[in-house]
């Protein structure tokens, strides 16, 4: 039986990876393609960590259990819980505060490192990918020493492309050597521009995008290092590695920065790659899939039954996947939890069509991604399928509150 490794990269846009047409920033991740199934239409369950990770780890949607403010309630069944019960060793190494033990994400893991005890710098408010690699390597060595035959599920998560964008000099030089900002100046851009979501100066937005890309370079190297660790410890050939992201990042495409509650492609259409060294050649799938499909894919690889609570389906075998529409949901940034006026945002994608509903202004947008991949041309009033698409979304708006009544 093979091991399964889930490598997630926070805030990673799909279109910055070379294999998805994004230039040459990620030679290592691109090199995996010859042995991978790569999904071009994979969607996150939402546009930020709290909205996206319930899909990746629990095959459930963000608002299934009301507004949990990032807490992982017991109704969500973590993939680690299912695997641990089935006798698979489970380990997690990450540094995202939203996914820490305090919020309940530590269930089912034999080993759970969330870095919350570590002191971090305001410019790098997380443990870097290299250090995560080191900790995961230590665990892999430990696993090996204890016999090493028992299959394991290892989740490794990198935070390094998340803002503040303060990349190391050498990566900035690789992206654009003409950028001569000091670390303090980069951090000032985070404070004065990113946090204020100020897109008024196009050059500044472009500068921020380049700093972000420098972090993407950095993460590609960290991923290469991680695979070297797998090689060194003899775990490369007998492991399947699933690579994905919880959400993307906006650089002014739809009037904002960072990742708020919006549902456009740059935020919710994420990379999803299943690397299996035993594959004879790379496969590209254009099927519309969801990161909610990740947990059942992992249990499938172990030959373990999925949880009945899960809403996704296994991506493997690819031929057996039943194509269907995918959803995503979030809370609009404009509302306030304290004032109780939070509003929901939803999307639904089926075929080439994607519909977005914003409760804040009761607005609908419909895009034909085949003609309009950048979502510029709202066709909600111009098509006969609008009603069909709306009917998919309407029952999901405030569904938890209605179920409680």
């Amino acid at each position, binding site marked *: 039986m093979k091991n399964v490794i889930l490598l997630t990269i926070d805030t990673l846009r799909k279109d910055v990876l070379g294999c998805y047409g994004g230039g040459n920033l990620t030679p290592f991740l691109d090199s995996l393609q010859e042995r991978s199934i790569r999904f071009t239409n994979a969607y996150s369950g939402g546009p930020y960590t709290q909205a996206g990770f319930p899909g990746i780890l629990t095959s459930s949607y963000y608002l299934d259990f009301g507004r949990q403010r990032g807490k992982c309630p017991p109704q969500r069944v973590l993939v680690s819980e299912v695997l641990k019960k089935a006798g698979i060793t489970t380990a997690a190494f990450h540094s995202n505060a939203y996914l820490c033990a305090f919020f309940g994400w530590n269930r089912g893991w034999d080993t759970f490192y969330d870095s919350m005890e*570590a002191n971090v710098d305001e410019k790098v*408010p997380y443990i870097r990918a290299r250090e995560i690699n080191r900790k995961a390597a230590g665990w892999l060595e430990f696993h090996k020493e204890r016999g090493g035959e028992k299959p394991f599920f290892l989740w490794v998560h990198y935070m390094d492309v998340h803002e503040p964008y303060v990349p190391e000099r050498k990566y900035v030089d690789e992206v654009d050597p003409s950028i001569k900002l000091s670390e303090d100046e980069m951090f000032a851009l985070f404070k004065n521009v990113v946090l204020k979501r100020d897109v008024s100066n196009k050059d500044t937005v472009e500068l921020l995008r380049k700093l972000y890309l420098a972090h993407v370079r950095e993460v590609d190297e960290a991923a290469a290092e991680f695979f070297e660790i797998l090689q060194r410890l003899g775990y490369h050939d007998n492991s399947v590695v699933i690579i994905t992201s919880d959400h993307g990042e906006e650089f002014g495409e739809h009037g904002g920065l960072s990742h708020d509650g919006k549902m456009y492609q740059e935020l919710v259409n994420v990379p999803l790659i299943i690397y299996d060294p035993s594959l004879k050649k790379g496969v590209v799938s254009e099927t519309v899939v969801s990161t909610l499909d990740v947990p059942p894919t992992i249990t499938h690889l172990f030959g373990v039954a999925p949880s009945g609570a899960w809403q996704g389906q296994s991506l493997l075998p690819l031929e057996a996947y039943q194509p269907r529409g995918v959803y995503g949901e979030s809370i609009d940034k404009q509302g306030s939890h304290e004032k109780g006026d939070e509003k929901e945002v939803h999307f639904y994608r089926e075929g080439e069509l994607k519909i977005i509903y914003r409760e804040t202004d009761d607005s609908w947008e419909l895009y034909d991604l085949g003609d309009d991949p950048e979502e510029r041309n709202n066709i909600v009033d111009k098509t006969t399928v609008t009603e069909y698409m709306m009917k998919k979304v309407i029952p999901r708006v405030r569904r938890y509150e209605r179920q409680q009544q």
Partner: protein
Amino acid sequence: MPNGKPLSKQRIEELETYIHISQNIVREAYRQFDPKDIRLVWSGHKDSTLTLWIWRETCKKYGFEMPRAVTIDEGDTFEEAEEFLAKMSKEWGIQLDVAKNEDVLRACNYTLGADVWIKDLNERNREEIKRIGFGDLERFPFEAESFIGNHLMKSVALNVYLEENDVKVIVQGLRWDEQPVRSDDPYFEKVEAQYLQPAQVRIRPILHIKERALWDIYHHWKLPFVSLYAQGYRSLGAKTTTQKMSDLPAWEQDLENTVERAGRRQDKEAAMARLRALGYM
């Protein structure tokens, strides 16, 4: 032995050296202080029990008088730890006091999670809440390890005890590898008096003993410990907010590569600070 392997002769000598270093710190304490002024803070958990054992062995060896010990009852403790304290204090002849913030417990009707109205608290507790920056609050839910709960139920309970009993020196079972914030704590630390906080000297005899060495000492010298560690708890805090890390006994877990306190309630403030630094909230 942990992991079923007997310790090598070299390892045993290493452990003896660690204990020797700790015993020298105890001897230094007796050169400087009167045992009547000293209290060992003893939760019954693994670190403070090792500290107490080493202290007691040193007393036996050098004929010192054993000081009293004090345990902090935060209102949310494991029964197993309470029973362990009762049993071992009797067996080892330890005079054990209890420091407890009764006023807070009374205000929430001895119920975890129930609201404590700040107007129902005594002046000292009200002043303490103001001191830590929550002066504008009307009430808070009683949780032993929330920011306010931790302060009132642990720090204040202990400080009041120290004041009332005129204690000048406390002995703490802290270890350098327990968490990064401890990594440069000194063996002897003089803390000046501050508003609402008595002057005190803190002695930490087992700082250098790492988690692996601690368990090796427990097994080699057959020290008693709370059964929860055998069930997979690595680090014990308040009962309702401490989780098992694994079903493996603590000493069989991957001590070197994982965080000892990961099963403990993560400080919400720390999580919030991280999220703010990432640009949220």
